[in-house]
Structure formats: C-alpha cells, structure tokens
C-alpha cells in the first residue's frame, strides 16, 4: 500500500499539538481543520466530515484526558474512536453454506471480486459456484467463465439469454449442491431505474445471505447517494472496497457504511484472484488519516 503525502499535513498538525503543552481552543481548531482536510482528500463525504469534525472539536474541548495521556494523545484518541464508531468491525463472514449477490456501479470490480471470493471460500474448504447475471456488458460471460475456469470453479451462465432473472433462477437450481453460490450482476447506478428494478427482481429470487456493494476506492462524493440507492433496493450487508493497491484512500466507503449502517467486509488489492484481504479497520483508519497505529494509543488509556 502506498502511504502518502496527505498524511504530511496531518502530521504537521499533530506536531503542533505535541509542542503545545496544554490544550487550547486555537490549537484544537487548527488540528481539526487539518483533520478535515485529510478526510476530504480521502473522499469522505463533505457533510460527514463537517459533522465528524464538530463532534471531535466539542469532545476535545469538554472531555478531560484520561490519566497519563497528554493532550495530543487525547485528541488523537477522540479522532480514532469517532472513526471506529462509524466503521465498526469487519462484516462477519460465516464459513458455512450461503448465497451472495454482488452489486455496484459500472466497472467497480464486481466480476473480479466474484472470482476472488470463490477463491477465498474454496481455500476455506467450501465448494463455491458462480452465476453470471450480467447479460448487459459485452463479454461479461466470457470474463467470468474464463476466471472460473482458471480457478477450477463451477460456473453457471447462459450466453444467449438476455433475461438475467431467469438465468439466476435456473442457476440457483443447477448449483444447489454447492456450498457458496455467488451471483455476479451487471454494473448499474442509482438513476438507471430499469436496471435497479432488475437487481431487485434477482434479489427477490432467494434469501441471499449477503448482498455485497462493491465500491471503487477512488469514488468521490457520490458514494453516499449511490450506496443509499443500492441499500434501499436490496439491503446491503457489507461493502467491498476495490483497487486499494493504488493511491485512492477509499473514504467513499466510510460515507457508504455511515449512510447504510453496514460495515466493510473485504478489500481488493490487485487484479489477480488472490488479491483479496479481509477488511482491517485499523489499517483503513491509518490510511484515511495518513498516519500510523492509533489503536495502540486508545488501548493505552
């Protein structure tokens, strides 16, 4: 992972705090401003950033630092706990039979992540099967079937059928004896009402254990609105952040989980089927803020 230059602005703010001795309002204002900058540059929703920073400021000014904690550590601890409040823990993934539906915007990484998840579960000793419900994008069938073939994973698709709902209905029947069934859907966004309806119809076919929203780490301020639309349609159970092997910070995912009351399940860190990691909240917070281990600080208190 590339850790970055936005951190530097925050680091200098933290430095100011370190030198300040006691907490005064002016310095806290300064530091909170720098935290705002870091979060906005990480693509966290601007309104959420303002809400968060107001809370941080208020707490920093009113709460007494725990014994043995200097003022700098105190503010950092508040920032950390506020972010943890939103992010929570990684979405729990049970290692047992289940059905999963992949949804998200165009090009976010659903198909690639579908293959990665199949690999993840088969490594855990569960037998995966993958169903291609993208009847829209040219070559979608080939992309997923090739990925599955390479992995030796059961693939179900109907090349010439345009009816995604029918394909999934058939596919779920055909793959009954597999442990983990993953349905890859076509990319869509909130304003494409026909496609949103199609997604709902697929969702209605069975009681999907998980509905994963796949989000590009680079998505900007639209993350909230889009996540809400997907959540309204199919009830998101977790987010996957892809392309975290670049320089994007993934702040959109923070907005998304904040607005849908969900959590992050996995992160994608490359194009190959092995480039999938379970989500680690602490690593993610460090990346958002561009600085090291804040958790240790909290545990010190």
């Amino acid at each position: 992972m590339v850790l970055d230059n936005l951190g530097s602005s925050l680091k200098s703010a933290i430095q100011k705090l370190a030198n300040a001795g006691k907490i005064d309002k002016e310095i806290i204002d300064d530091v909170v401003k720098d935290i705002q900058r870091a979060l906005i540059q990480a693509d966290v929703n601007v309104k959420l950033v303002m809400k968060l920073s107001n809370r941080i400021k208020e707490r920093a000014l009113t709460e007494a630092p725990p014994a043995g904690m200097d003022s700098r550590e105190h503010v950092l601890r508040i920032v950390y706990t506020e972010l943890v409040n939103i992010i929570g823990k990684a979405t729990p993934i049970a290692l047992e039979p289940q059905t999963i539906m992949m949804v998200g915007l165009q090009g976010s990484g659903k198909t690639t992540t579908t293959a990665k998840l199949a690999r993840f579960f088969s490594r855990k000793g569960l037998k995966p099967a993958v169903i291609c419900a993208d009847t829209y994008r040219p070559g979608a069938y080939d992309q997923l079937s090739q990925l599955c073939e390479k992995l030796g994973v059961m693939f179900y698709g109907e090349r010439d059928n345009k009816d995604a709902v029918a394909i999934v209905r058939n596919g779920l029947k055909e793959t009954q004896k597999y442990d983990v069934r993953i349905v890859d859907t076509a990319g869509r966004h909130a304003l494409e009402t026909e496609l949103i309806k199609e997604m709902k119809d697929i969702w209605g076919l069975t009681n999907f254990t998980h509905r994963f929203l796949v989000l590009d780490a680079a998505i900007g301020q639209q993350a909230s609105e889009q996540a809400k639309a997907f959540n309204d349609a199919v009830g998101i159970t977790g987010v996957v952040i892809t392309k975290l092997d670049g320089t994007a910070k993934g702040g959109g995912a923070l907005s998304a989980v904040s607005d849908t009351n969900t959590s992050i399940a996995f992160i994608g860190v490359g194009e190959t089927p092995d480039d999938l990691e379970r989500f680690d909240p602490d690593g993610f917070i460090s990346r958002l803020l561009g600085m090291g281990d804040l958790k240790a600080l909290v545990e010190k208190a």
Partner: protein
Amino acid sequence: AITRGEVILSEKDLEGPLWELEMALLESDVALPVAESIIDRIRKDLSGQHKKFLRSTGDIAEDALRDAILTILSAHTLDFDDYVKGHDKPVIVVFTGVNGTGKTTTIAKLAERLKESNVGVVIAAGDTFRAGAIEQLQKHADRLGVKMIKHDQGSDPAAVIYDAVAYAKSNKKDVVLADTAGRLHTNVNLMEQLKKISRIIRPDLVIFVDEAIAGNDAVERAKLFNDAVPISGSILTKADADSKGGAAISIAHITGKPILFLGVGQEYKDLRKFDPDWFVERLLER
C-alpha cells in the same frame, strides 16, 4: 470606504462567500488542492477591487469562480473530429487509464461516431491481459461492423497495435483506435509497458479515460499517466451517474490538456462533446 456607490472588497468580506464556493467545489468532487488553488486565486484577484454598491459580494465571487474554471477548462483546445479530418492518415489513437473507467466502451462509442461521418476505423485489441477483454471489444466491433485486429491473450500489446496500424495503412483506413489494459498508476511495470507501447507505436493522440464519479485520486492518476505518456486530452465517463463531475476540473488543471468528451450512458450514442460553458452551468446550479 464608500465612494460614489462603490466599496472596496476586503479579504474579510470575501471570507464567507469564498468558503461557500470552496465547499461547493469539494462537494462537486473537485480535488482539495485544486479547489484551494482556484479559491486562492480568486481571493487574490478580488481583494482590494472596487465593487458596485448594488452587487452582492457572493455574486461577484461566483462570477470570478466561473471565469477561473472556464479558464482551466479552455486552456487548450483540441477538436477531435477536426483533428481526425485534417491529419495524415491513419490517425493513431491510444487510450489509457486506470482499471474499469470505460476505455473499451468509449472506443466503441468513438468508432460509432467516426463511422457515422464516414471515417474508416480499425480497432486494436490492445488489452491482452484482462479476462474477457478481447471478447468484449470483439463484440462491440461486430455490432458496429468495424474491423478489429487481435492477438492471443497474454501477447504483447504493442505488437497488436502495430499490426492494426499496418492493417490501416494497407487497407486505407483513416483511424486506429487502440485499447490498452487498465492499470493503476502506481504499478511501475505496467506503466513502463505503456511507455514501451508509446515508443513503438508513436501515437498521434493519447487519450486518458477517467470517470466523472472519481474523487481526489483523479489528480494523482492524471498526473502520473501524463508523466508516463503525455496525453493529448481526456474523456470522462459515467457522467450520467448524477455526479457533478468536478474530476474534469482536477484533471484539466493538473494536465493542462482539454477534456474532449463526456460519456453519459452505456449506449453507443451516449458520448457528448465536452462543452465548458454547459459544464460550468451544471456545476454551479443549485
């Protein structure tokens, strides 16, 4: 300091309106450093200026913002259609960008656009890496009735594009549209590969494709792609997804190159020539 119905603007008068405009830019996905540099510029330009008594400071600041953005977006111009018309044939166009932004789809849209004005097109399947990439482009080519040159998956992308250019020369085609695999700007090997493609092919135009829904990272990747293989202009896709598309400003600002088209949907017709005035109106509408 009121003289004859005018006041002099101070930094303090400007503070509120400029703060609001900066927030609007950030909420429109203009990257933070870019938004700050635009606002700083306006602050410098406006403070100390006289203003007519009856105009609000907010309106003045907004007009200044409009001008500043238009300046960025109109710094250089390149009319794709005119370029193709006026240039020696075949015109070789290579598309670059990070993963999943819409390069392949945009090539199909441009092929359709060129075909409609009777320009002969060849497509090069230069993404020899991603699963299904060749099949995806092939399907577009078949639908459009356009020739596509391909090699096997895993082969050298430069060689495919080279062959497409040779085909265009011997078959009197006017334009080669060359796809490349998506790659992250941090992947040193893949960025080197892109440079190699450019060295061998010597494209006339290099078009950087990014998406209108991208946030702050747009700056980083536009910069690194432009450093690796200088781009001629950019195309922003997925502008139909309800975003304000401030990434266009970030990218134009950091590369100094024009935005050529917007992708506004998944159909071939969903490609719109970029119009700075239209874009700024949309950005600033409330």
